[in-house]
C-alpha cells in the first residue's frame, strides 16, 4: 500500500480493519494533490525500489493484547483525568469516571444487556456493546435516562448508508449531527428552542458528546491520525439538537421521518450550520430567495458529491412560509427549482470542474463551461425541519455528500415494559 506520510496511521488502521495488520506500507511525501502530476515524477522514481521490496516482503506476525474490561483508576479528579488522557479516552474536556455502579445504572436504563453488541465502529471495528456505549455516556455526563438515546444514535450512525467509515476518516469538517424528535425530546428535556445548536442544555450536550466519545474511544477516530480532518469542526465536541415540534406549522420532522410513538433520533453527517439571516422579507418568496442563495455554495461537498442538505427553519420563517400555504413538500420543490439555488460554472476552476465531471457526471457531463447546475439533485435532497427560538434566522447544514440521514427509534427502556429491540 502507498500512503502519503500524513496518512500512515490511517493506512495502518485500514489494513488492520481488513485483517491485514502487517500489510507492507510505503510512504511518499504528502500531498500528491494540488500540484501538476509531472512534479511528482522524481519522487515516484525514487520510491519504486521500496515498492518492489514491499511487494516481495513477507508479512510479520502481529500480536495484540486485548484491553481488560475493568480498571482500577485513581479516584482523585485530576489524577483520573490524567489516567483517561493517557489511554486516549479524552476529547480534551473533563469526563466523569465510568464507575461500575454508574455504568450499571446507565445499562439498566436501556433495558438491554451490557453485552448486547450494537455494532462495529470504524475505523478500528471494535465492538460497541451497550456496556461500552453506557461507559462513554457516563463519561460525557449523561444521566442514566439519556443512555437509550445515545444507543439509538450509535445504532443509526452504524447503518452502512450513513458511511461512518468515510465520515470519521475524511479531511472534510463533518461529524454526525443528532436530531432528537418525537415525545422523547420533551420527556428528557432536549432543547429544540432558543439556542438549540448552542450551549446550556445537559441532554443536547451529553448525547452529542457521548456519540463523539464512542467514535473516539471505541472507533479510535483520533485527530491527526485516523481522523484526518484538516480543520475539524466545533460540533466534534457535541452536535445535538431537538426538533421544535410546537413551532412546526406543518407535519413534524418526526412524522416525516417515520419515527415511532416514543420518539426517535436522526443522524445527519453535517458540516457546521450556516446562518440564513432574513429580517427584511415579509413574504414566502423573499425568504425562499434568501434560503436558495445560501444553498448555492462553491465550498460545499454537496456541489459535486451531491447528497442531502438539512434546512433548519426558525419558527418565524416557517410561519411566514406556512401562511402562504407552503408545507414541507412545497418548500422542497420550490427550493429545488429556484433559480438562485444554482451554481454558475464560470466560478469553478478547471481542475475542480474536471473532478466534478468524473464524480457527478449526471450533473456536470453535458454542461458548458459557463453553464449553471442545480445544487439539489431533487426536492427530497433537502431535509426540512423546524428548530430554534424567536428571531429571523434559519440554518443550513450542508453534508459530507456521500452519506444519508438515518432514523432509529429510541427504545423506551425497562420502565415502560417495552421489549428489547
Amino acid at each position, binding site marked *: 500500500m502507498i500512503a502519503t506520510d500524513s496518512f500512515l496511521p490511517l493506512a495502518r488502521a485500514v489494513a*488492520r480493519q481488513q485483517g491485514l495488520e502487517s500489510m507492507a506500507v510505503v510512504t511518499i511525501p504528502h500531498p500528491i494533490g494540488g500540484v501538476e502530476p509531472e512534479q511528482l515524477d522524481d519522487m515516484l522514481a525514487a520510491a519504486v525500489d521500496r515498492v518492489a521490496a514491499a511487494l516481495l516482503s513477507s508479512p510479520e506476525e502481529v500480536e495484540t493484547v486485548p484491553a481488560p474490561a475493568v480498571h*482500577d483508576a485513581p479516584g482523585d479528579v485530576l489524577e483520573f483525568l490524567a489516567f483517561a488522557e493517557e489511554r486516549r479516552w479524552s476529547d480534551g474536556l473533563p469526563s466523569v469516571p465510568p464507575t461500575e455502579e454508574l455504568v450499571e445504572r446507565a445499562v439498566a436504563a436501556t433495558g438491554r444487556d451490557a453485552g448486547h453488541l450494537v455494532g462495529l465502529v470504524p475505523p478500528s471495528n471494535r*465492538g460497541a456493546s451497550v456496556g461500552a456505549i453506557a461507559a462513554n455516556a457516563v463519561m460525557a455526563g449523561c444521566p442514566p435516562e439519556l443512555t437509550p438515546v445515545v444507543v439509538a444514535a450509535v445504532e443509526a450512525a452504524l447503518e452502512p448508508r450513513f458511511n461512518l467509515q468515510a465520515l470519521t476518516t475524511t479531511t472534510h469538517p463533518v461529524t454526525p449531527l443528532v436530531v432528537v424528535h418525537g415525545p422523547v425530546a420533551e420527556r428528557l428535556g432536549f432543547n429544540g428552542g432558543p439556542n438549540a445548536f448552542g450551549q446550556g442544555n445537559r441532554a443536547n450536550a451529553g448525547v452529542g458528546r457521548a456519540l463523539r466519545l464512542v467514535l473516539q474511544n471505541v472507533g479510535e477516530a483520533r485527530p491527526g491520525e485516523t481522523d484526518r480532518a484538516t480543520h475539524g469542526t466545533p460540533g466534534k465536541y457535541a452536535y445535538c439538537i431537538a426538533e421544535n415540534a410546537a413551532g412546526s406549522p406543518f407535519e413534524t420532522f418526526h412524522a416525516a421521518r417515520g419515527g415511532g410513538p416514543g420518539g426517535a433520533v436522526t443522524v445527519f453527517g453535517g458540516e457546521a450550520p450556516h446562518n440564513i439571516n432574513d429580517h427584511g422579507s415579509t413574504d414566502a418568496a423573499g425568504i425562499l430567495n434568501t434560503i436558495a442563495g445560501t444553498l448555492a455554495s462553491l465550498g460545499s461537498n454537496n456541489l459535486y458529491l451531491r447528497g442531502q442538505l438539512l434546512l433548519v427553519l426558525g419558527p418565524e420563517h416557517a410561519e411566514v412560509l406556512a401562511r402562504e400555504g407552503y408545507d414541507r413538500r412545497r418548500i422542497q420543490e420550490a427550493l429545488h427549482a429556484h433559480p438562485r439555488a444554482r451554481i454558475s460554472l464560470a466560478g469553478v476552476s478547471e481542475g475542480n470542474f474536471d473532478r466534478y465531471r468524473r464524480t457527478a457526471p449526471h450533473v456536470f457531463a453535458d454542461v458548458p463551461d459557463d453553464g449553471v447546475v442545480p445544487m439539489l439533485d431533487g426536492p427530497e435532497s433537502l431535509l426540512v425541519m423546524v428548530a430554534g427560538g424567536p428571531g429571523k434566522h434559519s440554518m443550513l447544514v450542508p453534508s459530507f455528500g456521500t452519506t444519508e440521514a438515518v432514523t432509529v427509534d429510541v427504545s423506551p427502556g425497562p420502565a415502560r415494559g417495552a421489549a428489547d429491540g
Partner: protein
Amino acid sequence: MVVRIVDPSGSEPPTQRLDTTPRPASLAGARIAVLNNGKPNAEHVVRRLAGHLAERFGTQEPEGAEKPNSSRPFEAEVLDRFRNFDAAVVGVGD
C-alpha cells in the same frame, strides 16, 4: 482512593486475520493490479509507479481500476477482477 471503572473502548475487533499468499521470489512476469483511490493525481502516482515496476523489474503491464467516488469503497466485483493477480498497489492519502 481507587475507583473501579468500566473500559470504554469496547470489544476487540472480530476481524479475521487474512492469510496472505506466499510472496513471489521475483517480480519478473508478475501481474500487478493498480487501484486508484479517486483522489487528484492518484491515477498518476499508481500508474507511474507501476510503469517503473514494469521497466525496471520486468512485471507485466499493470491493469487498473479507479474509484469514481473517493468516499466509497471499491465495488466487490471490481476487486474480483484482480483475484488471481500476484500483487496490487493501492493508496491512502491526499
